[in-house]
């Protein structure tokens, strides 16, 4: 059985978090900021902040201009991709954490 299947969901969530903060070419402060800030955290400097907020709040309304601005500020398409990915990962992981909290409150052993 492959390692993907053996690891628990909690372990996979942590591996995803660690991969976003611990790898990539985008400045670590931006990757970490996108991943850890959340809706109540300190916003990232512009133009990064606007794209991260848009991805978090309604990704269907992200514009070409928002992505282009980040691409120019970050210096490469790969760096821009990593910011997009980090912002998306924040949204998924925050929801995973919320589900785990609810399950823990309800007395379900978490993985």
């Amino acid at each position: 059985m492959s390692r993907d299947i053996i690891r628990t969901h909690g372990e996979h969530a942590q591996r995803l978090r660690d991969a976003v903060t611990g790898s990539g070419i985008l400045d670590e402060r931006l990757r970490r900021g996108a991943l850890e800030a959340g809706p109540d955290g300190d916003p990232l400097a512009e133009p990064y902040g606007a794209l991260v907020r848009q991805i978090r709040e309604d990704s269907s309304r992200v514009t070409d201009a928002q992505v282009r601005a980040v691409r120019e500020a970050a210096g490469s398409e790969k760096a821009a991709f990593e910011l997009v990915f980090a912002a998306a990962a924040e949204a998924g992981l925050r929801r995973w954490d919320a589900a785990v909290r609810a399950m823990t409150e309800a007395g379900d052993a978490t993985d």
Partner: protein
Amino acid sequence: MRLTDVERGDSPWHRALIRMISRVSGMRLPDAARVAFYDRGFAGPSLGEWTQKTMRGPSAWSVSERELMAACVAAWNSCPFCVGAHGAIAVRGLDREVLERTLADHTTAPIPARLRAALTFIEKMTREPEALAAPDVEAARRAGVDGDALRDAAAVAAVFNVITRYANALDFAIPTEAEFEKSAGMLLRRGYS
């Protein structure tokens, strides 16, 4: 696709692979697969591994049920690419009418009560995660969703709250229905990692 580097591939090998797969399959390789090939030194492989476990690993939910959950998360996040891609896989194991009625309103769709309860939980997880609490878990439990099944459903919601967001942000090209159908076969055979 807003980033041409992602669309094309970031190495000569990946560019050649993308061209070859597109040629052999007779269709443009979908943007989700192009993202999976891209920036492999970053976090994509970790997400792919979690997605593989979530969507294809042992679970109380069938593959079709999990793909239905993914399509619902995509609908709640207004991601037409993921609705199309995962709906096309879901209907390999359940009726198209069930898919369409569940996407329209899972509370009245002709689906088992435990699946309905899991979808209710992950809808709240998607739309109002900060409001999710023990009563939501207890409601799912009363409908027959045990801890493992609820964790599996929550994992579908978690990974697809990630995937739908980057699909939208990168403006994935929307395949035709025939292309979604062809891709469904490939995803069922290959999986996600």
